[in-house]
């Protein structure tokens, strides 16, 4: 379970005397139960990506509390934060964030290199994950040889290979056509339902947000609406 209480985050813009502080997030309170699907919506610059980065333990926050399964994130060392990202969180990003020079298998296996997974099991797990996203036959190809939709599937396979409890998707369909977008969203929703993975999607598209049961709208760093 993810629990956020009165979370604030601000950025310094500029240097020295000319610097000013911009509030990116202000008193955010959010409770997300295991297995929920949540769409975070908002205009550009509203703070939704900042919130996702904090949820993914990629960014710090100034005040408030943020816990995953009861563990306060602010107190975590870099090593522990990395371990939590590896075990509990999978990322699916707009630009796919794949390493093009490596094979599909290697990209999917990447999180397992930083886990306790036995070396022999890595390839097997990658194969299973790719089978779940429907591109097992592409396992030996380099990622640059794949289409956009296939590449996003590889990213999803990489996100689920460690069996995380949370998937964070930042504009997951932003680089895809509408047909491929719906296929990718169907796939993410399937994992949400069948594997009880919490799905948090940041998007500005209504069609994508409609897949999720809960919609949180952020405006000027504050939660404007939170509808289930």
């Amino acid at each position, binding site marked *: 379970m993810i629990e956020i209480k009165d979370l604030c985050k601000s950025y310094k813009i500029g240097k020295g005397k000319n610097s000013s502080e911009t509030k990116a997030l202000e008193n955010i309170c959010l409770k997300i139960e295991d297995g929920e699907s949540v769409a975070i919506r908002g205009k550009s610059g509203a703070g939704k990506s900042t919130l996702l980065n904090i949820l993914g333990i*990629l960014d710090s926050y100034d005040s408030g509390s943020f816990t995953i399964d009861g563990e306060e994130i602010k107190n975590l060392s870099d090593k522990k934060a990395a371990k939590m*990202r590896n075990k509990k969180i999978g990322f699916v990003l707009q630009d796919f964030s794949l390493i093009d020079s490596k094979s599909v298998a290697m990209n999917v296996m990447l999180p397992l290199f930083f886990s306790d997974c036995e070396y022999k099991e890595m390839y097997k797990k990658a194969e299973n994950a790719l089978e779940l996203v429907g591109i097992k036959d592409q396992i030996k190809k380099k990622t640059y040889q794949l289409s956009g939709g296939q590449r996003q599937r590889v990213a999803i396979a990489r996100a689920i290979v460690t069996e995380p409890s949370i998937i964070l998707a930042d504009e997951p369909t932003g680089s895809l056509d509408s047909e491929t977008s719906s296929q990718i969203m169907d796939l993410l929703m399937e994992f949400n339902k069948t594997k009880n993975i919490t799905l948090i999607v940041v998007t500005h598209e209504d069609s994508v947000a409609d897949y999720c049961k809960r919609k949180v709208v952020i405006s000027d760093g504050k939660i404007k609406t939170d509808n289930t």
Partner: protein
Amino acid sequence: MRKILMAVMRIKDDFVNQPMLMTLYCIGTIICVTVFIVFFGSFNALMDKYEDVSKASREYYVFFKDHYNVSSKDFSFLEKYGIQEIVASDDLEGYAQSELEIYNSKKSFNANCVKIVFKENISAMENSNIIQDISQKMDGKYGDIYISPPYGGSATEDLSSYYRTLINLILIYVICFIGCGYLFKYVFNTSKYENTIYSLVGASKGNVVKIMLIESVILCLSGCAVAIILHLLFKDNILSMIYLEDSTYSFLDYVYIVLFTFLLSIATTIPFFIGYIRNPILKTKREL
């Protein structure tokens, strides 16, 4: 073990993705190490030469017409000048056939030449006193003697060609080293994207730095190995053109060279790694 495997895979990928950059980096490393090997040998040769020149300015030869049994106590009258060593030899036309260090030893040696080396440099006044003392104490007792005073040439003059060669080598090394540093910066920058993805999937910064460090050490040690092989192959022909004469290498010298290069490669990469550790993951992600 996993980190080593990942580092090896990264090197392989680097060569596939940016062959020109990696080839230049490897050539740069090999040149750097080769120049250092030549510098190391030449520096040792300089030190030996310096010791020889220094010794030459402190050593006296006393030649006898015949062979005499000489021992350390025969030269005790020179103790006041501070003796470093006394070597008695069986000399034939300036070449010692056999010799024995007799200073501080009870042994005697049937010699026709004795070399006396003093600890400190000898002043002009001391020089004339020593020659006078030796003449007084030994002339007659050992037949006619001939005293050869210390080498009078200027040590600086003699070593100037050595210094020139070493300075040239240092300049070449510094240029190669700076070039390699810049190439490493490019290699490091191109790996930023991959490092950020490692962080996304759960690698701690420590783990990423360890992988990068292993990568640069593998590249450096491979460069070392190639440079040493090239040196062994070409030391007697091509490389001898830039050598100082008398440059010799022992196995231990090569160990020192590898160790130095290894430590230097780590020291060079540390600032890059500190920069990486200090930057938040998100900043690196945004920079891409």
